């Protein structure tokens, strides 16, 4: 039963990712991407990582994807952009990268299936993660806070409209 669930989730994740990346409408693509993330969350859960599964849903599928939704709504992308994107999805455009990717895929599949017999491990609870996170990895938490700050400042500066001073100067 459980292996079946895994393969099911894996199939859903793969299919919805492929669909997400081949849509021409950004909003549609986003829905597929969220489905894919949810499927990956199921995989996490099956792997004995319930904490990661919860975070995948809350933060990834929830928070980060909502950012995308905001931006897509704000930009209100029209039909024209969709048309152009469709143009990019003609075979002539993507055939070469796709062949490259296929080659890489075959290689990866081959390499990974060559390593054998790796099934062991046990469930890792949220508590264990927490203890280790604030133990040996405490520095990582601190640096991650700085990283988020950098993201915040960067996004604020990059995303804002022209500065007040300049607009004042023009008017």
């Amino acid at each position, binding site marked *: 039963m459980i292996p079946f669930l895994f393969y099911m989730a894996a199939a859903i994740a793969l299919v919805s990712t492929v669909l997400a990346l081949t849509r021409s409408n950004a909003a549609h693509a986003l829905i597929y991407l969220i489905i894919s993330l949810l499927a*990956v969350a199921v995989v996490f859960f099956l792997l004995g990582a319930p904490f990661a599964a919860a975070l995948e849903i809350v933060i990834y599928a929830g928070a*980060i994807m909502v950012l995308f939704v905001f931006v897509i709504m704000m930009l209100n992308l029209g039909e024209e952009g969709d048309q152009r994107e469709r143009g990019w999805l003609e075979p002539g455009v993507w055939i070469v990268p796709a062949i490259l990717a296929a080659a890489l895929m075959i290689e990866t599949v081959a390499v990974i299936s060559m390593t054998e017999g790796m099934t062991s491990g046990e469930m890792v609870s949220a508590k264990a993660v927490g*203890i280790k996170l604030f133990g040996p990895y405490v520095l990582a938490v601190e640096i991650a806070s700085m990283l988020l700050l950098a993201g915040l400042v960067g996004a604020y500066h990059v995303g804002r409209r022209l500065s007040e001073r300049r607009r004042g100067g023009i008017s």
Partner: protein
Amino acid sequence: MGGLVVPLEHVLLLAGLLFICGLTGLMIRRNVIFILMSLEVMLNAAALAFVAAGAYWGEPDGQIIFLLILAVAAAEVSVGLGLVLQIQRRFKTLDLDQASRMGG
């Protein structure tokens, strides 16, 4: 539920496939939003591989790296989407080729 229910290589395979989907998307799409989505897929695939490996060794380290990758993804996406807004405002397009002003 506990431990690995399927061989590790199958999970890594899934991660690899997702990663390559992301990479392909990154290479063939021209719309910045889609490129950022592909980036997310790639990061998520790496995170999946970490969680799987952590589960295999029975250690929380894999999940911790997953957490860090979440932070990384959030930071990257926030700046990336900020840039998207600015690009749309400045160039009136999200197509990277059309927005290109430099030689290479």
